[in-house]
């Protein structure tokens, strides 16, 4: 893809208020992207601190540091923060920064809404975090908030939980609408659908998933709210409801939600691998089709989270087959990345290292996902640490690694400076080793029979849990290196060129580094 970049560096247009006002009032996609990313990083550390509490308590059998009720609040809020506060906003931040620059648009299509969709987010999490200080504590029913544990049997923080999830949902929906409208309307002339970078494609599909399922989440939390406070019985058999109905609705949101957290990652890896292999992506079209099929299938597999709830055999078989089918388009993606590397001329800068680790470790998460799809075996895996291992491979070494890779990849474009490669490599290797110490042994613990979400465990699990906790602490500490890299890079460093990476292609690499406050005010022409 090549572009004729016209003179768009109108530096004199860079008028913006200074200080806090710049950030409060901004409608600039780059500023908003930055705020999303910084917010996600802060949430990543808060959610991570909660994981440290969990791992400290699980370091040894017996209750040492926290009460079971607080332990449950930690697992619940850790999950909510990481999903809605860290991973999703980080992807939205990347979308804000990169999509307009990748399609040759001057900004997002709905800049004021963009401002609002970010600024309600800190309040959502403030409400959620404050609920921890209520008498009785915050939500303690798991991030999946199964009824009736979250209705009849929950504390009064439930109302705050519901309100904060509503705000997160509104923010996500607005973010998604913005992405869709931008991509549909603001592509530069000549930027046809099948010329769009894969990151744009995967985000477009993600945005559709978001506007389809976030209302379902809003619906289900509202039903929880009315069941608890207004006498309805959606999930109470005594009033004609059904607690399993909750799970159907939740997972109808929840399964597409996990793809919401991984599709943009596919886009990122599909950008990074060709750059550092200096070779075009092997199957661009098949990547687009694979992403679309994964998105469609994601609506047909929700009940694979519910095999033990007691469903008819025919239902279980349907969901088993559909779930197994997802392995096919996912496999196509992995094969594509490997074929892209094949006979390339690879270099191994930090973004590439994280992308390579993503491919291997995400695939391991995919394998355990395939194992979980086999319903009879799922009866043994379900709600054990095997599942915890599975979704952390997909979400930490999958989604989070891709976000870190993206940050390293585009940092020079954002700041105008190269990051410290040596420190970055340290960050990578420390993260890689510790993350596997943390999550790999969980497979064994789960197979041996340790249920998830328990604050204390039988003695046979002691050694492994101690080891896992050490891995957890190391992984947490490793992320401090990341902060050091970010701060150092924001402050200065070797000047980055416009292209930054030798093999990089795409419109974002044709504007100078750092990208000017306004880019593509005159659309580039794409041949």
């Amino acid at each position, binding site marked *: 893809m090549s572009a004729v970049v016209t003179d768009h560096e109108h530096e004199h247009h860079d008028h913006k208020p200074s200080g806090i006002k710049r950030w409060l009032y901004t409608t600039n996609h780059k500023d908003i992207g930055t705020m999303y990313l910084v917010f996600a990083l802060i949430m990543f550390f808060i959610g991570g601190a909660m994981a440290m509490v969990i791992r400290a308590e699980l370091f040894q059998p017996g209750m040492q540091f926290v009460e079971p009720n607080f332990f449950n609040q930690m697992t619940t809020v850790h999950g909510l923060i990481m999903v809605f506060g860290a991973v999703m906003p980080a992807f939205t931040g990347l979308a804000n920064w990169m999509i307009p620059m990748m399609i040759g648009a001057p900004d997002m299509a709905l800049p004021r809404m963009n401002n609002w969709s970010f600024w309600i987010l800190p309040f959502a999490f403030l409400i959620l975090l404050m609920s921890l200080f209520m008498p009785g504590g915050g939500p303690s029913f798991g991030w999946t908030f199964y009824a009736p544990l979250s209705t009849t049997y929950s504390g009064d923080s439930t109302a705050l939980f519901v309100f904060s999830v509503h705000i997160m949902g509104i923010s996500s929906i607005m973010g998604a609408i913005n992405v869709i409208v931008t991509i549909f309307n603001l592509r530069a002339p000549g930027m046809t659908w099948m010329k769009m970078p894969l990151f744009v494609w995967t985000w477009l599909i993600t945005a559709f998933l978001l506007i389809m399922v976030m209302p379902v989440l809003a619906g289900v939390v509202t039903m929880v709210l009315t069941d608890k406070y207004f006498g309805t019985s959606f999930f109470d*058999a005594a009033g004609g409801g059904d607690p399993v109905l909750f799970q159907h609705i939740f997972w109808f949101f929840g399964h597409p939600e996990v793809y919401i957290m991984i599709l943009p990652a596919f886009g990122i890896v599909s950008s990074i691998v060709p750059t550092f292999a200096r070779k075009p992506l092997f199957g661009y079209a098949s990547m687009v089709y694979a992403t679309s099929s994964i998105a469609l299938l994601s609506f047909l597999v929700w009940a694979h989270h519910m095999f033990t709830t007691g469903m008819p055999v025919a239902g279980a078989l349907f969901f088993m087959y559909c779930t197994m089918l997802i392995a096919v388009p996912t496999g196509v993606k992995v094969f594509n990345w490997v074929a892209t590397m094949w006979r390339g001329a690879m270099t191994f800068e930090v973004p590439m290292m994280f992308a*390579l680790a993503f491919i291997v470790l995400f695939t391991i998460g995919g394998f355990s996902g395939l194992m979980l799809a086999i319903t009879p075996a799922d009866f043994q895996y379900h709600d054990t640490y095997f599942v915890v291992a599975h979704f952390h491979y997909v979400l930490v070494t999958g989604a989070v690694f891709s976000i870190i890779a993206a940050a390293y990849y585009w940092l020079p474009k954002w700041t105008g400076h190269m990051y410290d490669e040596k420190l970055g490599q340290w960050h990578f290797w420390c993260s890689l080793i510790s993350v596997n110490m943390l999550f790999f042994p969980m497979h064994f613990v789960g197979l041996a029979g340790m249920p998830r979400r328990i604050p204390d465990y*039988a003695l046979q699990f002691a050694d492994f849990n101690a080891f896992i906790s050490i891995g957890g602490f190391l992984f947490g500490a490793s992320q401090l290196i990341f902060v050091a890299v970010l701060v150092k890079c924001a402050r200065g460093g070797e000047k980055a060129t416009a292209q930054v990476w030798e093999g990089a292609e795409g419109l974002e690499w044709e504007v100078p580094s750092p990208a000017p406050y306004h880019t593509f005010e005159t659309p580039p022409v794409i041949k």
Partner: protein
Amino acid sequence: MTKTRSLRWSLPTLLLAATVNATDMPLNMTRGVTEISQQVYDLHMTIFWICCVIGAVVFGIMFWSIVRHRKARGVQPAQFHESTKVEILWTAIPVLILILMAIPATKTLIAMEDTTEADVTVLVTGSQWKWHYKYLENDVEFYSLLATPKEQITNRFAKGENYLLEVDRPLVIPTGKKVRFLMTSDDVIHSWWVPAFAVKKDANPGFINEAWTRVDEPGIYRGQCAELCGKDHGFMPIVVIAKSPADYEQWVNGEAERIAKARAEEQELLAMNMSMEELMSVGARTYTAYCAACHQPNGEGLPGIFPALKGSAMALNDMPGHINIVLNGKAGTSMQAYARQLSLKEIAAVITYERNAWGNNTGELVQAADVHAVMQGKGE
């Protein structure tokens, strides 16, 4: 077996070898003790090896490429992309593998779900945080509670061998017979899981789920609740003892007798008065087993979730109300009905205890007859 052996000495285990007094943890799913659990294990291993082979091939090619096709070796990047032939191939092969995998999985699943023609049926009811077993063919039912002492959990005593996996009254089933489980719950969703049987089924309030097992080996099998069910989710284990049909018969008759005898004693008790001392000692024991999880050993509850009994208006003044709430629970809250969980004696004792412990010195005694009166609707 040799495979498991070699796995056992994998890197993490070596690193761990130095730490803590280890009970050995198996590194793989249990084969279990039933035909079904063996099938499940086989499915697990089949899909595991399939994943290993695919992983070895894909990662092999990837690492080969990483080693060979690096710029540092001075290679020129090829520019090929798209190949319909390759793409069809790598779509079709996984589909075939998946179809092959789906066949045995379907067979096992259908067998697992066939709960017909059972010899023994047990109704399993979960509640916060214990299991209740009721043998539908016999007049036998009982609660099964965690038997690990609180002192072990809070690290004041050394932990026993079956820490957190021991109960006061295990479920007993006959070997060689098809045992059907009907699962339900009194409050939130629980999940009854015994790995050795490959049975994990949710206990949903207001609905009944079915599962079954046929155990051939007599033995003790342990499991845990597998669905987050509140504060003490980690503290509601399952213990199943499989006995030969003859031993089982003997046990079940003995239980029926014991329960009948307890009922008769209950009737006698109505005419008797227990001393404060006796009531307080039985009461303290019952309180620790049934009430302390929520209302806390010090009677102060957990503010915002579980109300305090210490100094509460009900415990100090309203005796009929107090008896009533213990008997019938409080709808819409976690407070359970204890009428069918505890004997009249225990209920009388625990209420006496609650009215006289932690400075609630009402000096009032509650006798079995008082409880019985409220139960019959005469108390209020």
